[in-house]
């Protein structure tokens, strides 16, 4: 099972389930997004950021905010070929997220990635909890 300090793959019969950790809420969100980058590209590193984006999201709860954040990252990849390299973000107030994304848009025509096609970020089994050592979340992607 694929495992990194920040996240690991868990078994799911049809789809892809991950467990993500972060010392802070912000780190957890960045780690979850980088896990998605890995799933989509099949690589952890080696992409040179060549474009930035700013986004603001607001959701009714923290776990839904996490799903919304990942939906956003997935959309940029699927529609614009924007692969997230890094992000800095703040979660303000109750559930307001402001983020600056650094991403890689390939300059090579038809550059292909060796990851998997993620169709969507599901809400099934979605969880986000504060533990003694930080935050832990579970997300299932339709793949």
């Amino acid at each position, binding site marked *: 099972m694929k495992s990194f300090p920040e996240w690991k793959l868990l078994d799911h*019969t*049809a*789809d892809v389930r991950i467990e993500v950790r972060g010392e802070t809420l912000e780190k957890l969100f960045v780690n979850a997004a980088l896990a998605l980058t890995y799933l989509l590209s099949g690589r952890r590193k080696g992409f040179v950021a060549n474009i930035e984006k700013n986004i603001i999201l607001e959701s009714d709860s923290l776990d839904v905010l996490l799903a919304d954040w990942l939906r956003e990252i997935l959309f940029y990849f*699927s529609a614009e070929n924007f692969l997230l390299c890094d992000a800095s973000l703040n979660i303000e107030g109750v559930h307001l997220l402001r983020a600056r994304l650094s991403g890689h848009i390939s300059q090579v025509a038809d550059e*292909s990635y060796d990851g998997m*096609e993620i169709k969507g970020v599901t*809400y099934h089994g979605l969880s986000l909890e504060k533990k003694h050592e930080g935050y832990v979340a579970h997300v299932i992607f339709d793949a």
Partner: protein
Amino acid sequence: MSRDKPYKIRRIDEFRWEIPKVGSMRVPGLIYSNSSLFPDIEKDNSCDQVYNVAHLPGIVSRSIALPDIHWGYGFPIGGVAAFDLDEGVISPGGVGYDINCGVRLATTGLSKVDVIPHIKELINALYSNIPCGLGSKGGIILNRDSMSQVAKLGARWAIKQGMGDESDIERIEDHGIMEGGESALISDRSFERGKNQLGTLGSGNHFIEIGFIEEIFDENVAKLWGISLEQVTLMIHTGSRGFGYNICDEFLAKMIKNVSKEKIDLPDKQLACARLNTPLAREYLAAMAAAANFAFANRQIIMNLVQKTWERSLIISPHELKLKLLYDVSHNIAKMENHEVKGKSVKLCVHRKGATRALPAGHPLLPAFFVNTGQPVLLPGDMGRSSFILVGAKGALEQTFGSACHGAGRVLSRNEALRRTKGRDVDRELQDRNVYGKAAGRKTMREEFPEAYKDVSAVAEVAHKAGLATKVAKIKPLGVIKG
């Protein structure tokens, strides 16, 4: 495992298990399986999902799972649920991200002996000519106007562009058009995710497979459908690509907010829904129909690409190839249909999540060609063993709102499949089974290795013996491309 569950499961007969109604379940659950398949179902959360669906408002009779049931998200894969139009709901998660994912099967005028010597050449040519793999692009580029036409006209749009024959329309579920596809509801984001994906296969378990008829179980139906022993077949499995994924995604997010507003209590957020008599539900249904039409057009276009490639690569004429669509079925969809409930015909919204409609002979929704036989039910198996063609039976209308299974159903996660195939040459193993495979993704062949799936023969047998759909023929694969 069931020790910690809020429900119990009891076996009713050889092929059916029931989750009796407890707590806030509105109806019982009903699972079709057999002694060999059931232990795998108990290992994951699929029974919990049958139980969860039974809580949805307005669900009628029972929450159903077919013999290919496995753990999905929200609904189980292989799940069927019907809802009352006044009290009930529509749940995008009960349709899935890949709206109108489905399968089409075509027959040819070729025999296996004509194709076996050329199978590598054919599969390589298909792989080169048909865009496949992660986020595959390179199909037809749509602008807003042409996307609206695809969303409205479905397979007919492709035929109008010269991709296919007018007679194909009679061989596609709902004539290849889901009424009500509304382009005004297509967001910029859905357009962006779909605009260059028409005519692309996608990745994961989507495939194009060349096979042959290895065994015939129902000579009469096979003859009427033009199926004969050793005849070469084509099967295509794909759906609405990024266009459908984004429509599901957007409406799920809206419905997550809606359930709080409407105070609908759900055991799983992914079951987020809207009451069928609300504007939100109507908007989703129109957007879903647009995506369904994209998928019908997609499969029509891919079949046309296969035909051209096949003729060119093997240097044969259309007359020799004689590629003829048998049927195209949807297996991720919600439909308004009349079903008999307590002796009365009632219009219901039937969700089929990884389930195929299985109308028996004489049903008014059948195209003329299938009125005397019932509709083909296509059951793709794994890429090494076999697939089945069944025909819809009366029992489906009586027990499962006219539904039967949609495939073998996964039994191993992708991770487990990779673990089991570590160090193995799956391509070579397939070739030892006389199947030539090619995949875009480096790990796809290992993730999709045959034993990652249930034995489709057992799944077909349950459907057959439970009277949902009866076996017509078995297909043995010769070559496959995976995304």
